[in-house]
């Protein structure tokens, strides 16, 4: 067995809403091994998004520890976390979250700007990845000039810009029709199989989740059921 690339150890997240404390996560334990394809499922309000924000170093736990490649990141500064996000994690969102004023090429190149990659290198890499996701002829289009499926493929290309170990997809097919959604999922499956990327997929759709090696069911901020589909990696 390979080492856990990400490990959540008794993670709690408490929000304050006025005088009421809301526990979004209650002692979540989760370990994801390198090269795994894990789906996280659960009803709305189960803490899926909070969990994925923790895994993606976007948010800090109120209590508990998060390990990324055996390094505790739960106490790091925002700038250090930003560096980790930029280098090791690629995000794919339900709303695509592209920057509308920038072209497809510029969107894909943007994560490399923050890592100090030279301009030539950025353009070369961004072009390559966009060709890989089948958008080689759309590199100068703005997001608003692209279809939903194309926008999500730009977002996938952006997630891969800095060649991260982990790709985090939060409801990536939520805004797409089922056929386009299938294409996006097949991209993720390929990334897992061919490029050995660790994929973490948040969804409420069993048809999507079944592509994973393992499904974790989340309810009330903790894992209630774990289901192995195939051996990953």
């Amino acid at each position: 067995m390979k080492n856990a690339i990400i490990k959540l150890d008794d993670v709690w997240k408490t929000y304050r809403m006025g005088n009421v404390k809301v526990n979004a996560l209650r002692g979540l334990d989760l370990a994801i091994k390198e090269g795994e394809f894990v789906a996280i499922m659960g009803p709305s309000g189960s803490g899926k998004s909070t969990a994925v924000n923790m895994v993606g170093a976007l948010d800090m736990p109120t209590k508990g520890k998060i390990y990324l490649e055996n390094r505790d990141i739960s106490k790091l500064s925002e700038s250090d976390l930003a560096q980790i996000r930029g280098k090791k994690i690629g995000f794919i969102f339900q709303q695509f979250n592209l920057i509308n004023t920038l072209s497809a090429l510029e969107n894909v190149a943007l994560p490399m700007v923050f890592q100090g990659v030279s301009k030539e290198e950025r353009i070369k890499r961004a072009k390559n990845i966009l060709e890989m996701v089948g958008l080689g002829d759309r590199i100068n289009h703005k997001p608003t000039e692209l279809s939903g499926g194309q926008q999500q493929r730009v977002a996938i290309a952006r997630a891969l810009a800095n060649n991260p170990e982990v790709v985090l997809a939060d409801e990536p097919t939520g805004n797409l029709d089922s056929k386009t959604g299938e294409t996006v999922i097949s991209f993720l499956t390929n990334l897992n199989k061919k490029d050995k990327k660790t994929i973490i997929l948040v969804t409420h759709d069993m048809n999507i989740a079944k592509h994973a090696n393992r499904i974790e069911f989340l309810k009330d901020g903790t894992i209630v059921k774990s289901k192995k589909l195939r051996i990953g990696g």
Partner: protein
Amino acid sequence: MLLDYFLYAFNGLKQRKLRSWLTMVGIFIGIAAVVSLISLGEGLEQAIIGQFASVGIDRIIVQNANTGFGPPGSFDIKSLTEHDKEIVEKTKGIEIAVGRLIRSAQVEFKDEAQFQFLGSWPEKKEEGDFILESFSFSVSEGRMLKPGDQFRVVVGNMLNEKEIYPKKIIAGDKLKINGFDFEVVGVMGKTGNPQFDSIVIIMEDAMREVLDIGDEFDLIAAKAGKGEDPSKVAEELAKNIRKDRGLKKGQEDFEVQTPQQIVETFGIVLFAVQAVIVGIAAISLLVGGIGITNTMYTSVLERTREIGIMKSIGARNSDIFKLFFIESGILGMVGGIIGVILGFGLGKLVENVGKTVLGTELLTPVFSPLLIISALLFSFIVGSISGLMPALQASKLNPVDALRYK
């Protein structure tokens, strides 16, 4: 790296073209005002100091009090007399003293009558030479007046250059002053001072006769002897006149001025005027700066989600700060550049209006590199400071909240 941020910031401004322009208006009005007014003030100062420098610093002028800002003789007050001139001449350190009259009178040429200033010319040759030298008067056509030239005049350059009368006045023309016939024997060289350039110079005795002036002078011009300190001589002179008139110090009804003092007084006045102008411009820049702050806050709010996206793909707080800080800096800087160009144009416009309409070359703007550089630097600083708080706010946004923002 920084270039990427500049391009990104520039791109952001381009997306909000109208708002960016409106924001910059606040800055460039202020900068244009500063650049045009300061450059004109500097030009004015240089021109006037230049004129006094050509007069020479050993000159001392005695005038009646309170006539400093108008042509002498235009107020009905106690005049200087031959007796005063004698006191000046007797004062220790004075080499020569000349009494002068400057009055307006009706001057008729080719059946057109207008009021012009008449300036008296001394009857003694050495006194005439002294005036010629003191005011750096020259003759561009014909000759200057000389003793015995009763009923002859010399006219200022503007009367010869422009058609103030139906025709330009040239040497040999005939004029009527208060009904008396005069012959023009010369035209003075251009001095740049419209008062001098439109004067009609006439022998002192003729002027007294034509205008019925008794024993009085409008000003007494004197020269300190070689090796004397003009300021000390001027003090001594003032003391003598006080003594003669039985006045105490501080009660003077006359003024003794040296070019040095005039330049200094003028410098103080000009400085005060410029300080007021700069103060007003500073208020406009402050308002412009607040405009930038407002625009940047709106921009941060609008792009909250964008900030969240950038943070999720690896932007550090400092990266976000730089993006917004540079954006507001560009607003200030571009506003400044436009302001400098506008200010330059405005200064040149005033110069042209001054030359063509007012006929003066005193309004010639001087654009020193220091003025331009400080205007640009200042506008960039205003822009940056104005963007400081919004940029800080943007950089501190929590990525999760920012991503959720709709």
